[in-house]
């Protein structure tokens, strides 16, 4: 089966590209990125600020049981409705560095669309850090699950 979400991280480069085709009109995908209510719903985060204009900025905060788990912020460099968002993205409290994002919204048919996100990092090492996060997390999760199963067997 063709994968809906694709990642391209060419070796020797400090960037990566994420592409996704949606069963949604391009206007709705754009809204999912620009309307705080929708951002909050699909990202599971609290939108502290989201200024969709050239030279605007944004800030998100995710809490779990009253504790702030994750904070992200960035500057919105450019917005072109239903076409493009250029912004920076930085995760706070993590040793990862800020990166630049080019989000391209593309209409395929009236009901389908494509989103291409090009992310450019400070260096290839910084990109690797980012790729490593869910990898380490996923392995830890698998390990924790294994531990739980073993505990229950005792």
């Amino acid at each position, binding site marked *: 089966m063709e*994968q*809906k*979400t*694709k*990642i391209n*991280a060419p*070796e020797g480069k400090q960037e990566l590209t*994420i592409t*996704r085709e*949606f*069963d*949604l009109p391009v206007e*709705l*995908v754009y*809204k*999912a990125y620009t309307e705080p209510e*929708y951002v909050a*719903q*699909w*990202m*599971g985060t609290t939108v502290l600020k989201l200024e969709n204009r050239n030279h605007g900025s944004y800030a998100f905060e995710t809490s779990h049981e009253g504790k702030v788990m994750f904070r992200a912020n960035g500057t919105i460099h450019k917005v072109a409705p239903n076409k493009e968002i250029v912004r920076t993205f930085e995760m706070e409290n993590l040793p990862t560095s800020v990166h630049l994002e080019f989000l391209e919204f593309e209409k395929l048919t009236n009901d389908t669309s494509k*989103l291409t996100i090009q992310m450019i990092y400070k260096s290839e*090492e910084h990109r*690797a850090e*980012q*790729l*490593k*996060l*869910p*990898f*380490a*997390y*996923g*392995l*830890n999760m*698998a*390990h924790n699950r*294994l531990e739980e199963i073993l505990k229950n067997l005792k």
Partner: protein
Amino acid sequence: MKLRRDVFQAIADPTRRTIIALVAASAMTPSAIAENFDYSRQTISKHIQILTECELLEQEQKGREIYYQLNPKGMKQIADFIEPFRKMWDDRFNKLEDVMKKNQSNSK
């Protein structure tokens, strides 16, 4: 008997996967790695050796201690390396699709 070490074989073992996860967070000495397991120090050394032979881990000498860390070059050989990242984005986008479809039908 000489076996060609295979990276996928290397990560098929849960202990070795856990070692990878441990050093992915920060470089560690062999004894620091071994502390996380109930196995003997020798058993863990053997696992570290296999991971190093497969170029998944690399050594770094810091003073008197040898530290092991992820070898990004070796890790690239594993398609699975990028898979969790892809999966994370795929889940996010599926959520986006669900949320927007719900909103689409509500507004109709």
